[in-house]
């Protein structure tokens, strides 16, 4: 079995991070300091064309120190605990230089212990996720699932073989990725916060192809047993076979049933519409302009929820602040933005624990575990309620077009069907769509009882979970034209 242990020993990490923050402040190198460690051991089995073409075991560690001098901050990061003292010196030196250069006091602060009020150092209680009666995950817990820890290379390859068999049985092929990961986050601050957590993660995604038909299935979460990957394989293979002979739909407005993956794609855009601390503080977007107003159907409730038993819950952020459940849409009513210490100060609210640093960007808040509440309908019953419409499984390459109007564009992909008299009809080719998201969510009249989770790109430990929905007036644009190339 491949080794599957934390990238850095958690106890040692907490000890060394603590020593550094204390040392920086006690040595008067900085007024305040915080430091976080993110570690990830990820093991992935990626396959296509009948072979495993990208099997990967990747261990990554980053330790980042933020030193604050007269309210001005600088950060320095390294790839392990050994480099931590040097990083701390670099951060303190840079912060002092900035403070000297600016002259006037800045506003950067580290978190105070009251923001980490759920803190229970040394009292992590291992909790098993899944089972017949899953319990909500405590804000700070050791989110380790034994079955996920046992989801090793051999188990994953066996799953790949099963997928190949399911595809071959229908004369098709399959590509995808299955993996497991062990994520850790450790935070120490000069104000006395000490936090550490460890969490398993399992993911599976498959694209089946039969003739011109394709179908996709994806899910991820803390516990592999909750994903039901083996069961999903056969259903997706059958769906690909059913989508052979795709036709182009007429452009127009349709009643739609969106599968969980497609719904999750829409939900993932909510922060960009104004549910982020930065936009709210700038007076831009939905929270700033429509707070407390109805923006979606009463059937639509979306929260960033670190307490959820789905997605990728984790108890606190890189500033050590306990993640609060933030209702973005509460029964359709506009709620609050996610914040970090900086944007919370600007908005004069308490940080919701959503500090984040993405590659290539300035630090900014990120919703990390968006969850849409499930409803009471099966996907079949949502479809049964449509006389004429379309079922859309997956969206692709969605991009913001108009922030004020909450309009996005993208294309449909994989198993999409027309709906005729309450049943799936002919399979549909991929089409472009351009759609105001909140306008569509305001028409939702049915929500599915089963949810799926997708990863959110460029967000550390980011996921969105959503059910199927039924909505009206979805604008499908022109279908992709056939290739117009001619041979030379």
């Amino acid at each position, binding site marked *: 079995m491949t080794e599957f242990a934390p990238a850095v020993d958690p106890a040692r990490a907490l000890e060394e991070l603590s020593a550094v923050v204390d040392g920086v402040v006690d040595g008067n190198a900085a007024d305040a300091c915080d430091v976080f460690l993110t570690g990830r051991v990820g093991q992935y089995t990626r396959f296509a064309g009948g072979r495993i073409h*990208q099997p990967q075991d990747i*261990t990554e560690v980053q330790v980042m120190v933020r030193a604050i001098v007269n309210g001005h*901050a600088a950060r320095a990061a390294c790839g392990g605990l050994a480099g931590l003292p040097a990083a701390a010196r670099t951060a303190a030196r840079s912060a002092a230089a900035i403070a000297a250069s600016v002259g006037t006091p800045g506003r950067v602060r580290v978190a105070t212990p009251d923001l980490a009020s759920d803190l229970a150092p040394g009292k992590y209680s291992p909790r098993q996720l899944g089972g017949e009666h899953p319990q909500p995950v405590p804000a700070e817990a050791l989110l380790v699932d034994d079955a996920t820890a046992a989801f090793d290379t051999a188990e994953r390859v066996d799953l790949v073989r099963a997928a190949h068999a399911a595809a071959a049985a229908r004369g098709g092929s399959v590509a995808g990725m299955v993996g497991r990961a062990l994520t850790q986050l450790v935070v120490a601050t000069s104000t006395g916060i000490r936090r550490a957590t460890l969490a398993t993660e399992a993911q599976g995604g498959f694209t089946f192809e039969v003739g011109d038909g394709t179908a996709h299935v994806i899910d991820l979460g803390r516990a592999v047993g909750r994903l039901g990957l083996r069961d999903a394989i056969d259903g997706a293979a059958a769906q690909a076979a059913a989508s052979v002979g795709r036709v182009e739909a007429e452009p127009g407005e349709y009643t739609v049933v969106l599968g969980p993956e497609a719904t999750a794609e829409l939900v993932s855009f909510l922060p960009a519409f104004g549910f982020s601390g930065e936009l709210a503080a700038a007076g*831009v*977007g939905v929270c700033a302009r429509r707070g407390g107003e109805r923006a979606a159907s009463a059937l639509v409730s979306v929260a960033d929820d670190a307490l959820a038993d789905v997605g990728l819950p984790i108890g606190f952020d890189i500033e050590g602040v306990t993640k609060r459940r933030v209702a973005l849409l509460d029964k359709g009513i506009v709620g609050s933005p996610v914040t970090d210490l900086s944007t919370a100060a600007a908005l004069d609210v308490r940080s919701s624990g959503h500090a984040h640093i993405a590659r290539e960007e300035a630090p900014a808040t990120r919703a990390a575990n968006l969850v849409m509440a499930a409803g009471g309908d099966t996907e079949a019953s949502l479809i049964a309620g449509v006389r004429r419409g379309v079922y859309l499984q997956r969206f*692709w390459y969605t991009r913001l077009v108009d922030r004020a109007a909450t309009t996005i564009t993208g294309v449909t992909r994989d198993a999409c069907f027309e709906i005729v008299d309450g049943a799936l009809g002919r399979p549909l080719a991929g089409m472009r769509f351009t759609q105001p998201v909140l306008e569509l969510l305001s028409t939702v009249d049915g929500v599915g009882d089963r949810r799926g989770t997708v990863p959110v*790109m460029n967000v550390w430990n980011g996921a969105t979970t959503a059910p199927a929905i039924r909505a009206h007036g979805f604008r499908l644009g022109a279908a992709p034209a056939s290739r117009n190339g001619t041979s030379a």
Partner: protein
Amino acid sequence: MTHLDVASHTGVHGWGDLADDPTAAALLDQALAEVSGDAEFADARLIECEELRLYHSMGADPDERREHNAGIGVRVLVDGAWGFAARPLADVGDPARAARQAVGVARAGVGLGEPVRLPGRAGVSGRYETRVAVDPFEVPGAQRHALLSGLLDSMTGPAAVRDAQAGVNAKRQHRHYADTEGSRQHQHLMETGAMMMAVAADDHDVQRRTFPNSFHGNTGGAGWEFVLGLDMPGNAQRVGEEAVALLTAPVAPAGTADLVIGAQQVSLQIHESCGHALELDRILGDERNFAGTSFIGVADVGRLRYGSPAVNITSDPTVAGTRGTFAFDDEGTPARRTPLIAEGIVVGTLSSRDSAARAGLPVTGAARSDGWAYLPVCFSTHVHLEPGGGGCLDDLLDRLGDGYYLDDNRSWSIDNRRLNFQFGTEVAYEVRGGRRGRLYKNFSYGGVTPRFWQAVEAVAGPGEVRNFGYPCGKGEPKQWGFLSHGAAPILVRGQRIGVA
């Protein structure tokens, strides 16, 4: 400068620890020796990277960060199956650990599908260093802060500017490569860049302007001189004012129109509809589950009319100063100039050794990875549109006659075969009789890749070429690719506009 002491069994702590070739060679040899009895082929990439980022944002305190990491990625081919493992360098035993892990994961996949047969080649060794006039890491912090503070002040003059950000970035890397065929390579790469963005809002609308590139700014394979050459201060006030002007500008019309598309937007068009479409691993289906496939097939190489005769697109990582410049790709293939589209015909792909062998096509040296932690996959290098005979931008506008001039990407979407696209730009100007007139907002155009490129009537000349550094994403788990596209403005007829 301190160097890693292999005998001390300690890890890499700070910049420069892997500058030394003998130190790196010892670590790489350790990894390759560990798999010598198991693998028919193996390569190892030992990389040290340091990145500096500084941002000034409206209403917030400056944020400066410096990130250092070092690690090793080992790829092996065992009984026809690939394996890969990567670890940070916490101690000198990590190269061997990574190598053993890679063999372990490869063995699990043996027997699944046709065995991989990698055509052998002679080892290639060498060193390369980015030409840098001014080391960005040596630029005084006060100078960086003063630049950004001034940009923010200039952008935020108009009251309707509600958010603004200016930033500079620099990255330096020691990239060491070794393989079982005898290759030993060391590339010391440097890149530097800058960005600024202004967001204006009123009761009804939100608009933005960016400079010099709408994708996290522009970054080149050069030193601080690259930032100075961008003339950021000379553009900051305009960026703020144009963001505000867009609020009251009319919405761009819908219909069919002739267009002159500015260099930045052309670079995005190249990226999405040419670069990605010609990645050979994508063409072969390796990315089917996530990034998608391509409308171009292996059999199309040498045959498919992709664009008009005015369209010539080339992969050339030997062009100095770009974010896609290197001497060796991340599986040791020497950089070379490779025509991809010649007079409108597809003539090449962006390939790796594995994909080229499977397709029976040449290796073009486009296997690239995000540092040490990820497998090399096919990414763009410096993929650029060759300048044409269209003269300068004003000459193109004259030739356009009536239509629109647009630039600076705002929104971009393309289907999973890289065929059906819809792009929006930050600005568009009406052009009448070759003269630029009214400003429009929310301009968009859409179409089908080969139809678009076949409608290109002219490409501006060499004097209008600009290079744009891009970040890009691909793979599962997703990894970043850092690359470049060069472009001059183009004149394209009969495009569908106002599609969003």
